């Protein structure tokens, strides 16, 4: 079996359902013969990777779909072995450098050098260059980004780089200026409904518009999430009629409950309790940034207007600390304590003014 997300993913630029204008631009760019380095960015589930692969197909033809998965071994400076999975065709290579953890610089350098120094040998190839796709480019370390910047210029003749990131804010300016920035916005609700209906038709069932609306509403602009929800729904209740209850993922509910804990009581012992929950979330592979964001959004929903800005400010502040530091739990907890004391002081202030 294969997930619907994978199975019914559009293959060509023409197949794409939304952002038609972007598709035509990409198409003309691919046929212009002067293809730049590119940086696709946008929220997750907007269709960045799908667009990248469609562009590749436009560039190289169907041959680019013949993929093989290679396991390459790189040596870190301390001679530690790093095994990285590469997805490649004759025309492109795709890597996720965050798999290499701290040693992404080594991987990037080695790989790019190797690709850049080999010319395209296939005479039938439509383009003279190879393409390197770097997923999750915003998790590249600064070292790796600096390494990338030089290579991008040096090997322009036979290599192009396509970066894929959620936001450009974590990329250094030199890289941004060397790329053509392409923003892939999240699809609108109507777009998503269309896609859902299309998939339902391909699978062969009727999707009631109510259900489609419900799914769209719940997936907040994340196409992948919407399709996954639809598939899970379909598996649970095959006729999709009547009232649907879309279960949020466990971790999200958990985060919300943590937020409720923070608001309901502010004391050192509650800090301990929240810490336990945070640990639990971390040990379920939920990235700390996501935890912070989800909990903060929930807290902000529930508190007084005047506190919202402060809470978000501190969330941003500790998120940065988290990126610089090692032990995520300290920063999560620092934020929790900060919010608690803000909240407490807020009520304390009100009480005092009432008293006067």
């Amino acid at each position: 079996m294969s997930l619907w997300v994978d199975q019914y993913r559009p293959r060509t630029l023409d197949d794409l359902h939304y952002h038609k204008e972007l598709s035509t631009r990409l198409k003309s760019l691919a046929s212009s013969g002067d293809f730049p380095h590119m940086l696709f960015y946008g929220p997750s589930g907007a269709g960045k990777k799908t667009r990248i692969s469609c562009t590749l197909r436009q560039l190289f033809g169907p041959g680019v779909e013949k993929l093989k998965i290679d396991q390459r071994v790189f040596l870190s400076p301390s001679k530690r072995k790093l095994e990285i999975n590469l997805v490649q065709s004759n025309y492109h290579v795709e890597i996720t450098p965050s798999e290499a953890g701290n040693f992404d610089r080594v991987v990037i350098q080695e790989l790019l050098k190797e690709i850049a120094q080999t010319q395209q040998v296939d005479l039938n190839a439509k383009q003279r260059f190879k393409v390197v796709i770097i997923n999750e480019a915003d998790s590249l370390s600064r070292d790796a980004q600096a390494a990338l910047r030089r290579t991008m210029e040096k090997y322009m003749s036979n290599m192009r780089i396509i970066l894929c990131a959620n936001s450009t804010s974590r990329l250094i300016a030199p890289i941004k200026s060397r790329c053509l920035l392409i923003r892939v916005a999240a699809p609108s609700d109507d777009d998503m409904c269309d896609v859902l209906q299309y998939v339902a038709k391909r699978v062969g069932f009727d999707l009631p518009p109510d259900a489609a609306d419900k799914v769209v509403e719940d997936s907040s602009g994340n196409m992948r999430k919407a399709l996954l929800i639809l598939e899970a729904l379909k598996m649970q209740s095959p006729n999709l009629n009547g009232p649907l209850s879309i279960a949020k993922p466990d971790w999200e509910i958990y985060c919300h409950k943590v937020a409720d804990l923070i608001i309901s009581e502010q004391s050192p012992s509650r800090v301990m309790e929240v810490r336990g929950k945070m640990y639990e979330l971390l040990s379920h592979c939920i990235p700390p940034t996501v935890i912070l964001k989800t909990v903060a959004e929930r807290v902000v929903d529930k508190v007084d207007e005047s506190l919202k800005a402060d809470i978000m400010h501190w969330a941003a502040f500790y998120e940065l600390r988290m990126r610089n530091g090692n032990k995520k739990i300290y920063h999560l907890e620092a934020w929790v304590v900060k919010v608690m004391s803000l909240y407490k002081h807020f009520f304390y202030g009100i009480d005092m003014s009432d008293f006067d």
Partner: protein
Amino acid sequence: MAPRLSQSSQKQDRGYKSKPKTVKLGTPLISTQVQKYDPLTAFSLSQSGGDELAHGGMQKSPKGKGKERDVGYLSVSSPDTDDRLWAELPVHVRKVEDVRRWFHEAFEGGPLGKLRRYRRILVLTGQAGTAKTTTVRVLGREMNFNILEWGNSGSDDNVNDTSYDSYESAFTKFETFFNRATNCRNLLPLVEMSGATSSQQSQKAQNANSRHIVLLEDLPNILHSSTQARFHATLRCLVDRPPSDPPVPVVIIISDSRPRGEAYDEHGVYSRGRNGDGEGVIDIRTVIPRDLLGGPYVTNIGFNPIAPTLLRRALQTLLSTHSSNKDGQPSKEVLDVVVESANGDIRNAIMALQFAYTIGSRDGKSRKRKKGGNIPTSMLESITRREQSLVLFHLLGKVLYNKRKGDPLSSSTSAKDAQREKMQELLMEDPPSLPFWLKEHERRASKVDVDMLYGNSPIDSSLLSLYIHQNYTQFVDGLDECDRIVECLSWVDSSGGEVWYQANPYRFHILSMGTLHALPSPVTRRNQKFIKPQFFEYLENEKEAWDSVHDTRNWLAHSANKSLDNSWRTCSWSGMEVALELGGVLKALERCHGTSRPPRTHQRFSRMEFQSEQLTSQQLTEDDVDIEEASSQMNDMYSGHARGNEEISGQWLESDEIEEF
């Protein structure tokens, strides 16, 4: 290796010929050798013994490492070993039963006779001194199989040898040993039958005893990546072969060690699942290749630290069998201290007991009447490592109780101490008064000398921060103090870079001074208990969860490849996307019993139950602060893991049978 093998088999031959019925070679060798010893000379003794054995290449039964002394010690006292050893083996009955069942299935094939194929590798994990090896040996006696064991020591002689052409790498030797040991067992009974002395009976005994297991405890250097790769290949190769007849199961024994909370520990988590060689730690994940670990051929049984009751019983049995005269024996209190301090490590306990015993008997002569062989507490402390752990205790106490000049003395201080405190306080200078806009930072002079703390600290700043983080909430009065401490923790953690040379060299000072500054003064005494950081436990869970994320991702790509004609775009799932978004679908898949099921382990990241608070944290007691020892939770988790594996293998077995019938 080849000549050695033949040599050792010759040795066996001789053994068989002279005594056809006793096949346990080596045991008498050790047990006669070790009549009585004290810990100091015992070690040198053991080394020579070890060399002797190691030159035999394949070692039989107790190998001559220092640790095997306990076995020797135990078996010295009881020549007719079997029953006694069971009484003395301080392992939980169920655990032993697990291992025994595994061996039974490995040799006999379980109720249906099919399990033999899946009981190939048994991994015993657990912290040091939890009788893993002993259990196997005792079972070996009970179930009547021989143990072939690999020892690395033999290769050392060749290192400086100039004859490179005849040089065989240590690993090649291991490989040869391993392959022969697991494959070529059929030969030995043949040799035996051709022997002149073989009668019907002895042959029968021989057949029963032609069962062997291979025990790997002294592993090749797994931390070296290419050696590790070859080791994994060897294991895979073993599993791919159908079991030989009679089957030769492989037992691998791994003593756990725990990460120390240094900066790189957490980094390792994310890259760990993908790079098998992760950190410089030998644990089950580095020893066993990942695909095998999740597969049906490897069973993992985790040993917990030995329970104090079991340990005490074992020690008492040991004492009563070892010495007949009551006078020289350590008193009950000594036994208590030994048991308590051993922390579930029986090897340690026996060592301490032995030490206590030798002193006790010597002292016993001079003041038998007066003290009844009691040992001074200072001596006991040196036996039981208390001193070292106390330093950590003092360190935490100094930082977290935040004593300042002018604190009221506690009621328990003696007059003399109070006097001394007063004198000290007189000598201390008051800090200059702060201007009014900084008044909130004004504190009385601290009695804590941070430089001194730094000098005496047994732990580094990163571990200290974990301890402070775990414990600070008990010492504060309100949220503001919490805020200041955790802010300090957060700042210290994020100052400096990813590598050690970018780290802030003043972290320890900033951390302890920041904490001191933030804590209320005086700290309210409310019977605070120091608690071990939960960090490691969760870190371990996180590693497991990442592993299962990768398993799930592989499953995704794999199942898509099977159904579609190409793998277009299916590998684009990142680990994070799997962890965050796939939960619902996985749950639904589980429920609908489709043809292809996701790997069961996915629940490690997709399933989260929100429970209202229960604090199950372990209290830090004076005698178990030992930093490097694994917590018992970790072991529990491993055993849980093993159970999961069994389930899975059971499932696969069913489908297998359908194929065969």
